[in-house]
């Protein structure tokens, strides 16, 4: 909610100016198209007055007479948003040509889920196993490689690696296409295949950059847990090392990991705006960026709202899961 309010506050005033200018332009063009109206006035002043009154009338009808921060307008906007009625986009349209914000968002969302959520899941699976492995053998070669990879990959911007990947795989070895948007229409039966094929390069890039820090995180949790007494006890009893790591230790490391996983999953819905820009992936991130650059307020608000809702829901889920994995939390 606060996020939404701030967004509206930031873009509201600009939006009003744009809308008002749009009305002025509309009125003027209507009159120039219709010379009969202009001829019916005797003086220029009278003519200008007429135009002004027309403009004022329209502004009032659209409710733009009051400033954007008046409680009525914000209240109305918030109410509409709650009902998922985002109105119509001013500039952007969906691929099928609809300018309804809901249509646009629900067209882009699946693509982002396909790319970023898949990537996040792959990253977390690789990260958890690698992290568990290196966390259980502190100081081993795997541990060192994972740690240094995490440190190094964290300081590389993902989008730069993306550019390098495009250079390498689209220019030097022409395996994957440089643009991630498939060029065949979505009705074509081969569309899904083409989409998956175009998805490979961004997917590899995101996974490559992402799993290092995940592994490092999991490793740090594991290092702490592997020194706990109950692990020692299990070791002395003679339980299989692998079993200890993957069942007992990992279950204890689970609560923070699950929280982070839930947050990063919902965060992935926003799509990395920049990554999508590099690969030209037609998802939420690019939608967001396009909307902001042309100041398409309904789209910005709609996208922000959906993302915030997902964010809050995933925090809730994470909290519930936390309670499931760590019973101590339930009473707290």
């Amino acid at each position, binding site marked *: 909610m606060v996020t939404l309010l701030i967004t509206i506050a930031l873009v509201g005033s600009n939006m009003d100016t744009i809308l008002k200018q749009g009305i002025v332009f509309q009125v003027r063009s209507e009159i120039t198209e219709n010379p009969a109206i202009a001829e019916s006035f005797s003086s220029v002043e009278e003519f200008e007055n007429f135009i002004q009154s027309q403009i004022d009338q329209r502004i009032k009808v659209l409710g733009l007479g009051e400033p954007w921060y008046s409680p009525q307008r914000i209240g109305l906007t918030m109410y509409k948003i709650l009902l998922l009625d985002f109105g119509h986009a001013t500039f952007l349209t969906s691929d099928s040509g609809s300018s309804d914000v809901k249509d646009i968002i629900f067209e882009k969302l699946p693509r982002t889920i396909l790319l970023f959520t898949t990537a996040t899941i792959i990253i977390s699976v690789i990260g958890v196993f690698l992290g568990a492995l290196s966390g259980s053998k502190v100081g081993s070669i795997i541990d060192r490689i994972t740690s240094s990879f995490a440190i*190094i990959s964290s*300081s590389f911007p993902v989008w730069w690696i993306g550019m390098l990947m495009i250079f390498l795989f689209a*220019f030097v070895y022409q395996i994957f296409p440089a643009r991630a948007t498939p060029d065949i229409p979505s009705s074509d039966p081969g569309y899904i295949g083409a989409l998956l094929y175009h998805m490979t390069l961004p997917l590899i890039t995101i996974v490559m950059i992402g799993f290092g820090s995940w592994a490092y995180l999991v490793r740090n949790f594991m290092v702490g847990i592997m020194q706990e007494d109950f692990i020692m006890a299990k070791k002395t009893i003679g339980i299989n090392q692998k079993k200890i790591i993957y069942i007992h230790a990992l279950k204890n490391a689970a609560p923070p990991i699950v929280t982070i996983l839930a947050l990063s999953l919902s965060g992935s819905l926003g799509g990395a705006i*920049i990554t999508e820009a590099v690969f030209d992936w037609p998802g939420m991130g690019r939608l967001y960026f396009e909307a*902001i650059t042309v100041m398409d307020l309904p789209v910005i608000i709609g996208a922000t709202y959906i*993302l915030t809702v997902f964010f809050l829901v995933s925090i809730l889920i994470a909290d519930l899961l936390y309670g499931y994995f760590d019973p101590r939390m339930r009473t707290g």
Partner: protein
Amino acid sequence: MSSVTPLEIKQEFLKSKIGITGIVILAILVLTSIIAIITIPVETFQEWNNPGNWISYPKIAVPVWINIFMAEKIPEHRILESPSIQINSQGTISLTSHQFGLNFDYDDFPNDFIYEFTSEYSGSPLLQMSVIRPDGIKLELLSTSLPFSDSKTIHSDRIFSTDEVIKKNLSLQSEIFGFNLHRLSVEDIVFSKIQRNEPLKGNYIFLIDLYGVNSENHIPESKLIIGGKAFGIMGTDEIRRDLTIGLLWGTPLALFIGLVVAIASVVMGLLYGVYAGFKGKKTDEIMMRFNDVIYALPALPFLIILSVTISNSIFVMVGFLMIFGWVGIAKVARSMSLQIKTRGYVDAATMMGQKNSKIILKHILPQLLPYAFASIAISVPAAITTEAGLSFLGLGDPSFPTWGQILHDANTFGAAARGLWWWIIPPGVMIAVTGLAFVFIGNALDAIVNPKLKR
């Protein structure tokens, strides 16, 4: 936490290899920025987005050092500015002659050549351009008269190798060559062997002769540009900009952005968190809820909205980055100050009636300093990459081009798909190296401050 003294930190730090590496990289970067600020005037840098300033540079030229690894040498872009000048007078005719020597030692023809001059004359002098090739053949390129003027005038002009007249003059001398000159461009003929159309290596001399009658003529500015395909240490981009300048100047900018954002947000976060933790109760609750609200804001979309709606000036951007930087630090600082608060000496200080501000500044904050330094070092790379990301989206400050903006331009011109590696790799490597330096330092400090991670 309290057991670590500054001296210990220093000793431990000097022991850690990673920390030393970080410091060394940082020192090199600082040195680079000092060199950049001293050697490259700010004016050149501010002309970065003005294409007119870069007209005499080649388009998308590869770095010069690539020739070391190439069997076939790529022609370098040469700007010859100091010709040897001879002035002869015979009776009424005076001759001003400029000679440009060029050692051409490459396996490909140059792109073009341009002669840029400003001459001071009266009357209508004759300008002749010819070239003496390594094999002794002299080719007449152009002879033209400068516009007539009664009094002394100053005339500036450029002679391009694409000039039709030069082509025509060369085809008049076509009997020298053993192949058909038709369809070949001027530079392909001038720099060609006689029998086959292959580059001829050796010393070329370009002659510019200015004949005047009854007057003294000068060419105060005279410049011959041999348009090559390789230029400078870092090459050039699509708009003929010298990437070396952009990369060099990017260093102080990135360091400035990173350090200012990191220091400011850590200081903000520390004060906020410590105050909240120290006060406790309602104040703590309210302050932490406010913290949560900012924490829940999606940072990048908001940064984009802010830079689009308010301003994309680099200084305002630094401010925006700070808004999102202090939140995490405030949380940690609060929990740390909650711990310290329970210590005996803080209680004693409160008992003695010391002011809150004094307790915070004198007794709590110093305990957090090691942590603060570690988090400054760790948050620098984030600030640099975020700024680079924003610039990459085209939202950066155009008057201060950063590495991110170089990459933005590279992306808009499709450098990756066209294989212009020298436009993509260096800026990214610089971002990564700068980030790495701070990450190394931060990690080394972190290991000392949090002994738990040391194992």
